[in-house]
Every structure is written in structure tokens, then in C-alpha cells.
């Protein structure tokens, strides 16, 4: 069955690909190869809710669980935080790359590359 950490990761992976959210029973079925008890799924979900990764839609029964942020947003959050501690001036600029669109990113990258080649 793996550790609780791994379980949380699998649950998040399932929730991230279901934009409309999932109920606990649906989650158990999606993760059927892990043969989880419904109570285990509930435990993991309430942990994730407490940590702020999922939110519960209580307007319908059974409650549906939705991701608070997309996976990409979380990755960008980590990269931003990590790069903001980097000593390079250029690395500090990179902090903005995570929050702009793909097209902007390419433009910024080109710009950075050009600046570099004119400097050296």
C-alpha cells in the first residue's frame, strides 16, 4: 500500500486530472489497484484539505473534492521560491518566468539570451 506520503501523492494525481472533482468513493475506484478502504481515502482527503491542497464542495452529496491549484501552479510555486534564493541576478529574473504564459516565457528567454551574448 505504500506510505501515507505516497498515498497522498496518488490521490492528488487523480484529483489533478479530474477537473470536476471526485467524490471519495469515485477516488477509491480510480485508485482500485491500491485496494483502499473508503475510510483510508477519507483520512487522506481530510489531511490534504487541512494542508490546503484540496477543497470540498459541500453543496452536493456525496461531497466532491477539487484541487485548489493545478499541478503546474504548484511546480511554478516551488521553482519561484527556489530561484528567489539564487544569488544570480539572472536567476532572480527567472522568478517571473513561472508566472507568465509560455509565449512570454519564450520571449523573455530570447531576451535574456541576447543580453548575455551582447555582454560577453
Amino acid at each position, binding site marked *: 500500500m505504500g506510505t501515507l506520503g505516497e498515498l497522498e501523492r496518488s490521490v492528488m494525481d487523480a484529483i489533478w486530472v479530474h477537473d470536476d472533482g471526485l467524490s471519495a468513493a469515485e477516488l477509491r475506484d480510480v485508485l482500485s489497484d491500491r485496494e483502499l478502504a473508503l475510510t483510508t481515502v477519507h483520512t487522506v482527503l481530510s489531511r490534504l484539505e487541512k494542508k490546503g*491542497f484540496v477543497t470540498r464542495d459541500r453543496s452536493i452529496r456525496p461531497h466532491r473534492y477539487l484541487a485548489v491549484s493545478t499541478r503546474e501552479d504548484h511546480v511554478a510555486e516551488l521553482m519561484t*521560491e*527556489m530561484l528567489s534564493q539564487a544569488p*544570480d541576478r*539572472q*536567476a532572480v529574473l527567472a522568478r517571473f518566468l513561472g508566472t507568465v504564459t509560455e509565449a512570454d516565457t519564450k520571449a523573455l528567454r530570447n531576451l535574456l539570451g541576447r543580453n548575455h551574448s551582447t555582454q560577453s
Partner: protein
Amino acid sequence: MTIVGLILAVLAFLLAWPIPAALARFRGDPISEVVLWQAVGLSGGLSLIGAALAFAVAPGTTSLPQGLLELLRGEAHTQLSLVAWVFLIIAVLLIGRLLGCLVLTFYSARKARLRHDEILHLLSEPSATYPDTRIISTDEVVAYCLPKGPRKGTAVLSTGLIKALDENERTAVIAHERAHLDFRHDVLVIPFAAWHRALPYFSATAIGLNSVNRLIELMADDQARERVDPQILAQAVQSAAEMNPEHRGGLSAQRIRRLSHPLDSTRIPVRLMSIGLAAVLLLVPTLLILTPAAFGI
């Protein structure tokens, strides 16, 4: 006493501007530089606080500690002039701000690290090849480490980096990240992050923080040399820099240059001299503050 205050004020000024500016230009042994930076930071803070306190205690006091004791007992405050009161308030605020920022920086760094760890565990998988290493799925070419207590912590590699580097280069990068974790480089940065937070308008605090952040990268490279071929680590830095325009700054170039040469053979005597110099830097304001003799001048 006014003279001691003036000497400390001059010292605080020297440590706030010309000395950090000179130290930032110095390119030698990174450990020596970090030792000197720590001494400059502490000595600067001591001189600044000492200067304010020296002007604050009642005139005619034989020593600063005694003068402070009299103030604390409430024996001397009636003799204080308005100017002395102003200096006393400045000293108390300064001590509070510096210590407060130190505590705050420590706890906010810890909190950010725990949160980062929580999110990281949802986004990454443990590496099958390397111990205490996690792989995060992103095109960014990054490797970093997340400290967690003494000699523990996680090295993080991106799938982008794994694609960009070969196996030997990856091992070299992990040795670099391990060095950060094993030698607690994060702890060396905390005081400078705190001083910068406390006094952001002092350019010295920004220069100090930036320098120490840069120096720990060089230290990790030097320590990784003991486990991996420096030439391969240099290649890895080069490849990562090529993939990531934002990593191409002066630091990557400096790291590659250093890794391509053997370590400077004079580094041990330089280190001993730096430790001596650091001790002197710390002793001067300490003695000025503590010894009654200094008040005789």
C-alpha cells in the same frame, strides 16, 4: 566616553560601507571570505549598538557595562540629558530590531522549508538511483536541496536536468547539493538574510547576503571535489547554464573557471590569516565596549 562612542561610530561606518565593498571584490578562498563576512556582520552590529550605548550612558561613568547597570537599576536615569535619552532609545530599538529579525528570519525560513517540503512530496518521486533524492517533473533545468536538521535533507533534481545531463554529471551535481546539506550552508546565510531584513536600506546588508549566497556555491563545489571529478562538475554547470539562460550569470562562469583549476595551494595560510583578522574585527568593538580602561582615553 564620548571618544569611545566616536571610535565605535567610525568603526560602524567602516564596517557598513568601505570594508564590505572591498570584501565583495576580493576573490580568493570562499571559506576565508565567509568567515570574514560573518565577522564584519557581527562586528558592525556590535559597533553600531555600542556607539549608541556609549552616547547614552550618563557622563562620568567609569565603564559602559557599569553605566548600563546603573541605568537598569534606575540609579542614573535622572542625570541623563535629552540627547542621551535619544541615543538610549536608538540603541534599544536597534538591539530589538536586529535580534527580532534574526528570530523572525530563522522561523520564517523554517516555515517556508516545511511548506516547500509538503508540496514537494506531492509533486516528486523518490529517485530509484540516488539516496535522499527526489525527482520533480518539470522542464526547468534545476537541482537544489532542501535542508532538514543536521546532515539530513533532500536533494531535488528536475526531469529537465536529468535529460540535459549524463549520469556522471548528475552524480557530480548531487555531490554538490549533498555538500550544501552536509555542511549546513543554509545556516551561514540566515544571519545575512536577517541583517538584510533588519536594515534593507544599508547597501552592505544586500552585498553581504548576495556574497554569502554566492560563496556557499563555491564552497559546495570545493567540497564536491573530494567525491567527484571537478572537470565533470564543471561540464554539468556548463550544460545547465546553456539550457537555462537565466543561470548564465557571472556565478556559473566563476564556478567553471574555479573547477577547471586545482585548488589554490595557499588557501590554508590564507584561511588562518582570515580567522585571525576576523578575531581582531570582533575583539576591537567588544573590548571598547567592555573594558573600563578604554573609557580613560
